[in-house]
């Protein structure tokens, strides 16, 4: 159990605009890797390269030593689950049906009892069994996010990729989702890669962190070595104070002075226009 993911010198560009450059990374089984970085630093692109949504050069993304390009989409879907940034269905489907879609890579022609059983169990595990017959598009953001995670879990993946799963959620749902992810790695020999914006949440829940800056890895390592005042200033361009949280993880408090002065210097110029 447990797959090894290896990324070797991965570069990617959208029609000539480079998005990733020379990314090197290894992920062991049962690990939670948090990817942070400013907007447009390549977080989503990196995730999409990992599961073949974006096509990569040969031998840059390897799963258990095999190039992802050589693994069939269906086979890959059994190894890797993906939770996209936003989810919408063109047609109304019930929660049960949406999660059932996660069984797609396993279903040949008709649905087995086992598929239904797995879906029911996952819904129960995530505490959303009561939503099973509700329509997905009518749920709140937090509930929808859990359903999408449930769909990814129905794939029974050994690697789970999540793209900003907590961005639109309240603090309680953020914690819930991240606790669920942590528990997956403990019980199920599954590793998790999660891209997120919230540095404090990332440092609290990740085993290892990675900061991307303009498509390159700026720093990688345990949260203590990555979340430093210098790194944050270099990557985000803001001053901050990093302290140890009550849980013993690095905690960032951004200092407003510099951004404030920037806004203040801009404000008169904008204001004169009106």
């Amino acid at each position, binding site marked *: 159990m447990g797959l090894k993911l290896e990324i070797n010198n991965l570069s990617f560009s959208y029609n000539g605009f480079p998005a990733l450059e020379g990314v090197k990374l290894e992920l062991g089984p049962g690990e939670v890797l948090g990817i942070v970085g400013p907007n447009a630093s390549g977080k989503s692109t990196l995730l999409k390269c990992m599961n073949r949504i974006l096509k990569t050069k040969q031998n840059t993304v390897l799963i258990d030593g095999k190039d992802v390009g050589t693994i*069939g989409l269906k086979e890959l879907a059994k190894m890797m689950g993906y939770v*996209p940034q936003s989810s919408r269905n063109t047609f109304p489907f019930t929660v049960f049906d949406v999660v059932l879609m*996660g069984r797609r890579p396993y279903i040949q022609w008709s649905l087995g009892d086992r598929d*239904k059983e797995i879906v029911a*169990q996952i819904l129960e595990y995530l505490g959303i069994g009561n939503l*099973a017959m509700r329509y997905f598009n009518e749920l709140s953001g937090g509930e929808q996010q859990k359903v999408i995670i449930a769909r990814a879990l129905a794939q029974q993946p050994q690697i789970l990729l999540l793209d900003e799963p907590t961005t639109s959620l309240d603090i309680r749902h953020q914690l819930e989702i991240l606790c669920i992810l942590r528990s997956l790695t403990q019980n199920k020999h599954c590793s998790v890669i999660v891209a997120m914006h919230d540095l404090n949440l990332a440092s609290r829940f990740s085993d290892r962190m990675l900061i991307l800056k303009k498509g390159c890895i700026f720093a990688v390592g345990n949260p203590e070595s990555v979340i430093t005042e210098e790194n944050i200033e270099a990557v985000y361009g803001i001053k901050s104070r990093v302290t140890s949280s009550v849980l013993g993880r690095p905690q960032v408090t951004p200092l407003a002075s510099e951004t404030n002065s920037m806004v203040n210097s801009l404000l008169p110029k904008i204001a004169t226009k009106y």
Partner: protein
Amino acid sequence: MSTTSGVERLYTKGRARKILVILSAFIALLTTVVVSVSLGSASPGFMEATQVILSRIFPFAGIDPGSKIAQTIILDLRLPRIVLAIIAGAGLAASGAAMQGVLRNPLVSPYILGISSAAGFGAALAIALGIGVVVQYEGYIVVANAFIFSMLAMLMVYGIARLRGIAPESVILAGVAVGYLFSAMLSLVQYIAPEWAAVHAVVFWLLGGLSTAKWENILIVLPLVLVAIPLLMRHSWDMNVMSSGEEVAMSLGVNPRRVVVICMVLGSLVTASIISFTGVIGFIGLISPHLARMIIGSDHRFLLPCCTVIGACLLLASDTVARTVMPPVEFPVGIITSLLGVPFFIYILLSRRRQSWG
């Protein structure tokens, strides 16, 4: 784990209800067949029609086969027409549902790839100018022309969309463009046609109708539809998954481009083979999927069968009305489908609280 089995039980219950809906639609279709076979401007009614049909099915049971005229009317006129209506309705509806599903657009019909204009152009070439592209055999010039130009339109759309990576929007736009091209050429043919009668015949063909139904034609269309519809149904899961977008579809092991191409080709083949014989029967392929979706939900595993039966039922009912409402005048079925179907559609639309497009 009592709640777990509860969730499964709820799902199984919902599934049973959907199967029941499909069965009811099927019974409605059978009823329409019985009504349709008993109605007509000529005399044979329900009893006589049943007699004729039963005597054919059980030739040694000693059932009175009925008069010669009754036999001809039932076996050579009404039955082939009923069968063709069922096949055409089913084929157009299934193609429409599949194409709406993979292109994720509610305005898509089986004609989205410009097939109807292309078939119309091909038919007009034969009817108005007497030009047959491949087949010269008298009875089939129109049919062959319509089919060949439909396929040409499909290939053109495929070629254009392929250059843009088979994204739904490029397929739809290419289809619209190719459709306009053929529709312009169709107008040109009508404009330069030497006789008014020919133009009239083209217009009549474009309205679509089942009055020319013959067993020989059915033998050509039926196998294609019988193969294509199950093949489309095979991709129900893929269509469901694609409803969440291309990236999610890929992450669930589905190649969305491939599914688009398969459904495009199968749907176009079925549609082209049908309208080559019947003319452009509109509305069924656009509206049946919406009706079915409102009645049975979006899960294509149930939607496709339901839609197929509804389409067959709708076209058969419309055609029966078209040929019996004001004998001996026969209305083009396309007019009746809309006149009957639109009020029904609006009723269903208003009586459903949930939207069928998210």
